[in-house]
């Protein structure tokens, strides 16, 4: 019994190791190609870069395909990568901060005030979670233009507004589960609701805040359509810059593309390595409650 279990475990480990290769393979493939000359990427994507030129006899000379960091230099230049990176960081960090602070306040008010206004708001927020972006994209872009929200600061308003539904919903779910005694006591002791919220309620909400922050970070960092439609060429974020690299140059520079893809993936891997546990727990919690 024990021995057969061990053999089974060995076989399963081998299968899982093979599957792991399939899961990281595509990214390694892009990494490998990012060091190859741009003409050798589409034509032979599965070959390692060569470090010496080869004499093929009659067929001529096959030059070495390794180009060092050349693709990275041209990719960074063509996409103005650091500008896009800075913008993506700015937009993601401040949208998430605004969303966590403001929607938790809204959610607490909605759950505790229990008046007509609160009820209507709650159902509107829940309703908005179902609506696809395509439904509002056209009008939202026009309104953003009129209100001059077509820049990295203005788009924070749109992210807060469009992300409010899910975040309010998740915070409300949490608030419903905490007893009101502590809050009542704080109010009786002379706290106004604002102090009560930030000194008592907000600290208790920390697990939900982390979940909401992680889900929104994943959405906003990777979002393409909203920044593209609202800010377009003037202020590209990383996904928009990548898409312009494809569209902007008649024949696409595969070398620059591979390099930029790797540069776009690196921050995500670092973020994942640093808060892996919170990310997985947050995603599970978000799925189960959302």
């Amino acid at each position, binding site marked *: 019994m024990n021995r057969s279990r061990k053999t089974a475990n060995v076989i399963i480990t081998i299968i899982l190791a093979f599957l792991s290769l399939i899961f990281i393979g595509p990214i390694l493939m892009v990494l490998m190609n990012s060091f190859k000359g741009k003409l050798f990427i589409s034509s032979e994507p599965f070959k390692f870069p060569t470090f010496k030129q080869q004499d093929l006899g009659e067929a001529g000379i096959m030059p070495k395909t390794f180009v060092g960091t050349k693709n990275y230099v041209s990719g960074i230049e063509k996409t103005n990568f650091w500008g896009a990176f800075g913008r993506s960081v700015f937009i993601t960090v401040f949208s998430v901060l605004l969303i966590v602070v403001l929607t938790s306040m*809204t959610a607490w008010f*909605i759950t505790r005030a229990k008046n007509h206004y609160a009820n209507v708001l709650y159902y509107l927020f829940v309703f908005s979670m179902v609506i696809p972006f395509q439904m509002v*994209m056209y009008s939202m872009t026009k309104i953003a233009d009129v209100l001059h929200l077509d820049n990295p600061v203005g788009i924070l308003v749109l992210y807060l507004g469009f992300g409010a539904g899910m975040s309010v919903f998740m915070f409300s779910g949490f608030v419903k589960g905490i007893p009101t005694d502590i809050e009542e006591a704080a109010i009786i002791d002379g706290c106004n609701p604002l102090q009560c919220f930030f000194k008592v309620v907000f600290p208790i909400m920390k697990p939900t805040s982390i979940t909401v922050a992680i889900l929104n970070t994943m959405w906003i960092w990777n979002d393409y359509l909203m920044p593209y439609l609202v800010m377009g060429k003037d202020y590209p974020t990383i996904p928009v810059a990548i898409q312009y690299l*494809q569209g902007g140059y008649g024949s696409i520079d595969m070398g620059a593309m591979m390099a930029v893809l790797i540069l776009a993936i690196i921050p995500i891997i670092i973020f994942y390595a640093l808060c892996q546990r919170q990310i997985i727990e947050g995603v599970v919690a978000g799925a189960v409650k959302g």
Partner: protein
Amino acid sequence: MQKVLRKYWAIFTLPTVICFAIAFLIPFITGIGLSFANFTTVNDAKFVGFANYKKAFSGDSDFLPSLGRTVLFTIICMVLINLLGFILALLLTRKMRGTSFFRTIFFMPNLIGGIVLGYVWQLILNGILMKYNQTLTTKGSYGIIGLIILMCWQMTGYMMVIYIAALQNINPDMIEAAEIDGASSWQTLIHIKIPTIMPAITICTFLTLTNSFRLFDQNLALTNGAPGNDSSLVALDIYKTFYGTTGYAGVGQAEAVIFTIILAVIAVIQLHSTRRKEVES
């Protein structure tokens, strides 16, 4: 407390509500209005009744074909991703070394954005198809199959972590009791594990359903609908109708309304089925 709190309604809710109105409420209502209009900017909109809806369903529109493709695509993704995710979860909840390492690897693709993933897979799939003198854009079906592979790769880890959490929540006494009674591991799976994690199965089914149905970024980056519009899913098709041909923005908006209604119906079914499960358990 309620009375004091209600006086503070503006501080607590106004910032969120104003942004919500700008980003969602007003565009949503305008969007419904514009679906009955012909326009190139919001200001020159002319009421045309149901003409946009008629155009959306007419023969020369790609809306119905792309909707059909999306339904098929969604069903295949739903089945494959849940099956793969569940099998991986079963393997990774065994008592053995390395499970958390594998879990980390399998979940990783889920964090990478759709645009980046689309280009990563464009390289891989074109590289494979090249051996047969084809590319991803030779046939519409290649693009769709490519998207299915991409989605399995991206979302299997996501479903896996939900299934792992559910499997770890099963009371071990129940499984032990079954084993003492002589149940095989297959019997424990069918009669204990699967029935107990039914809520997780419902959640995962709907997650894969809505994510596949709304798919846009990956579709745009992988093939951009080529050849023609043959590999466009419905979200991309709506986008192309909006911005691709002048004078068709109204039709695009009408299609977006129909898309929204379908998603709303799915959400209602989801709410209903999770509620029923909660009552039962």
